[in-house]
């Protein structure tokens, strides 16, 4: 085994900046990262063993213990629960004979929970040995586990029922469906990739490209909404040895899956967008940072890159433009929502824990390896191609004044047709619900857990940077759902799990608030608790990154828009309740000493 580890480390030139790749390769080849592997690696990389371990322990998909020959990661987003996750979990546990969080004694099967895997439109879904299984049913689960016990290869486990569109390509052979329900400028088929690189760029200077981007008024599609043209201009002007183009395909916001669809159906558009960004900022290296949940796309995406190299769309002196060199490599994450934050992404890309950096300096000045770097969302790069093709002016006819262009929405939950919809900005929620066939709607979570939970009296609001800003996640909850128990607690626990822990505020306050929410749900809440929740949430404001700053949003926005749900649970006859349960607290000690406690109930 030591030789395997050595070969893997050498494959990446014993470069500790490539620790993520090294760890991914070891995890995949050995099934886990053993003590011996850590010792070998640490010596070769000149790191302390604990230093290697701190990166390992940060990422959900790395493990220092074996996780089974077959490792099941079952999605635990609220929408998964709405489509029967409990029954699927039970079926796995019953047929494998172990509870979730464990590996069978013979080391064959491991069952684990995982945060939203970007399949909300085809839940319940699980990842087994990097293959995504969607629309699971208890019957199918029993079938899968039976085949595991027979030691069948993954090719047999995945039945020949593949998804739509390019999911059918031999290099993908994926059970995932793209579920494209509405096409706009990005998802439409009327653009032949490479046209901009071949026909437009030779006639434009880098400054011209930036000018068109600025004129288009496009803002970042990842959710934060920074003007893209400005970002590129800052980066172009910043001094550094090299300039980098990074595409953020971490797509970890629960309920979002549109980047998965864009990368499946239009990867060339994204890569072309990255290349033209490289041209604009004067960079020759691009990286697609993609979440490990999408590992099943690895071969496919590499094939696309190879095809584009062969077609002269990547490489040297592209399109005959002297000095326009650009190529792209793919970097996988390993399960950490916070790595979608651009500076955390950079840390991860450098082989470290995904802890956001202090800003300033911003990545446009000091980014990847300390050099000027732009980081844009998948959708932003795809859109950039259409902007440069048709001009910034053309682009402004779509959407609204402050939110130009189209937005691809990932819509899931209680509706007839979950999937991906490309609409013009300015669309209102009411129309959106009618578009997807959603009836008797209680609430919509706009923008994922870090966004807003709104009720019917706000369905007239519109999607855009000045009203309901969103990276595209839309989860619909029908009247039958228990919003606090099934949605808010799930989201709070998501933030607790996904906090990097660096800031005192986010590391602790998420837990303090969730405990209070649980106290209320247990019937021990009083009116003051609601006041506390609102006040205490402000302590998250000084957190370093967006995750921390918005980590209380599930509670804050549900408290604002669904206050009655909280009030119904409060004790009306009490002003104070410490929430302490004496009976359960002394239970363990009573069991030991064989006493039956007598409680003096007031």
């Amino acid at each position: 085994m030591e030789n395997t580890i050595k070969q893997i480390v050498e494959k990446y030139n014993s470069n500790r900046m490539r620790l993520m790749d090294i760890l991914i390769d070891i995890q995949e080849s050995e099934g886990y990262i053993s003590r011996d592997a850590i010792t070998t690696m640490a010596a070769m990389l000149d790191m302390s063993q604990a230093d290697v371990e701190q990166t390992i322990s940060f990422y959900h998909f790395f493990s220092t213990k074996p996780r089974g020959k077959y490792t099941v990661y079952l999605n635990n987003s609220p929408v998964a629960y709405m489509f029967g996750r409990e029954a699927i979990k039970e079926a796995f546990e019953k047929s494998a004979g172990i509870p979730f969080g464990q590996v069978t004694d013979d080391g064959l099967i491991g069952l684990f929970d995982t945060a939203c895997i970007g399949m909300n439109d085809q839940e319940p879904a699980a990842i087994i040995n990097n293959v995504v299984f969607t629309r699971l049913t208890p019957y199918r689960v029993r079938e899968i586990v039976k085949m595991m016990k027979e030691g069948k290869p993954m090719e047999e486990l995945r039945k020949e029922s593949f998804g739509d569109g390019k999911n059918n390509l031999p290099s993908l052979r994926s059970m995932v469906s793209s579920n494209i329900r509405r096409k706009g400028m990005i998802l439409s088929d009327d653009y032949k990739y490479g046209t901009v690189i071949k026909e437009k760029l030779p006639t434009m200077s880098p400054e011209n490209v930036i000018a068109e981007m600025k004129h288009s008024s496009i803002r970042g599609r990842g959710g934060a909404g920074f003007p893209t043209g400005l970002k590129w201009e800052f980066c172009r002007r910043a001094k550094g040895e090299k300039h980098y183009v990074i595409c953020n395909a971490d797509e970890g916001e629960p309920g979002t899956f549109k980047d998965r669809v864009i990368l499946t159906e239009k990867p060339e558009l994204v890569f072309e967008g990255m290349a033209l960004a490289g041209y604009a900022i004067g960079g020759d290296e691009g990286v697609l940072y993609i979440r490990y949940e999408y590992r099943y796309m690895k071969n496919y995406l590499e094939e696309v890159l190879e095809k584009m190299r062969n077609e002269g769309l990547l490489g040297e002196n592209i399109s005959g433009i002297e000095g326009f060199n650009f190529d792209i490599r793919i970097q996988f994450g390993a399960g950490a929502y916070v790595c979608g934050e651009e500076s955390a992404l950079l840390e991860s890309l450098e082989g470290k824990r995904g802890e956001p950096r202090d800003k300033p300096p911003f990545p446009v000045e000091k980014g990847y390896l300390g050099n000027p770097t732009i980081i844009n969302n998948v959708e932003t790069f795809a859109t950039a191609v259409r902007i440069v093709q048709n001009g910034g002016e053309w682009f402004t006819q779509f959407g609204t004044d402050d939110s130009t262009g189209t937005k691809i929405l990932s819509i899931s939950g209680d509706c007839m047709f979950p999937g991906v919809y490309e609409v013009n900005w300015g669309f209102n929620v009411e129309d959106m619900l009618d578009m997807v066939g959603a009836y008797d709607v209680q609430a919509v979570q706009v923008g994922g857990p870090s966004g807003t939970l709104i009720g019917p009296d706000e369905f007239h609001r519109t999607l855009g940077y000045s009203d309901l800003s969103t990276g595209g996640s839309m989860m619909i909850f029908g009247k039958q759902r228990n919003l606090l128990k099934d949605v808010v607690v799930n989201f709070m626990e998501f933030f607790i799990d996904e906090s990097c822990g660096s800031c005192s505020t986010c590391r602790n306050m998420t837990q303090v608030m969730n405990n209070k929410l649980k106290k209320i749900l247990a019937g021990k809440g009083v009116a003051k608790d609601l006041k506390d929740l609102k006040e205490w949430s402000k302590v998250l404001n000084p957190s370093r990154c967006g995750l921390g700053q918005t980590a209380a949003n599930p509670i804050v926005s549900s408290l604002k828009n669904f206050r009655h749900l909280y009030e119904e649970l409060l004790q009306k006859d009490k002003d104070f309740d410490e929430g302490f349960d004496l009976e359960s607290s002394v239970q363990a000690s009573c069991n030991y000493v064989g006493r039956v406690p007598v409680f003096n109930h007031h």
Partner: protein
Amino acid sequence: MSDLIKFKIDGKDCMAEAGKYIVDAAADNGIYIPTLCNMKGVQPKGACRICSVRINGRLMTSCTTPVTDGMEIESDSAEIQDLRKSIIELLFVSGNHFCPACEKSGSCELQALAYRYQMMVPRFPYEFPLKRVDASSPRIIKDQNRCIFCKRCIKTIKDEKGRSYFVFRNRGHKLEVVLDETMGKTMDEATAKLAMENCPVGSILVKERGFEIPIGKRKFDKEPIGSDIKL
């Protein structure tokens, strides 16, 4: 000599060398902004967030933000002071900090800040988390009950190759600062002492040795933290 720039803190005119971090620039002008994770001369990493100030409406950490010409900084508002107090309280409830039984009492920066901010009872419920004490190194004890994740030991305690003795493990609420097992075994006395001194709380203690200064005569027993800058 570098260029001097002008800026304002809570309306007061200040001057400093361009590029200085706000927290140091403020100190130069006799204004105390509390810090906990920060250490003079060490690359800052805004971890505790106690030094947060408001600039142009945005909360920024003054230990990581360089001062710029004409900057207007808000530090002494009721909102920000309460935020700082909340963070101190939050650190108390999320660990197990029993000052009377702690060797660091009187030299502990967390305790000193709690006094300075007049914390009586934290507004948040105590969590009393179960944490371990690692005494596997022959030199030091790493008491997880008292760790506040400031990263000072991680950033400053390194061997001759630049390798870290201390690192993070896990993330979020499960975060720990741990000592490398192998390096912990060979740690020398001077390194152990430095690790203890750099720890703002009593989470890193040198073994088989009490504190030399008796309680009552320790640094913050005599005057509140920050008194060197402003009472």
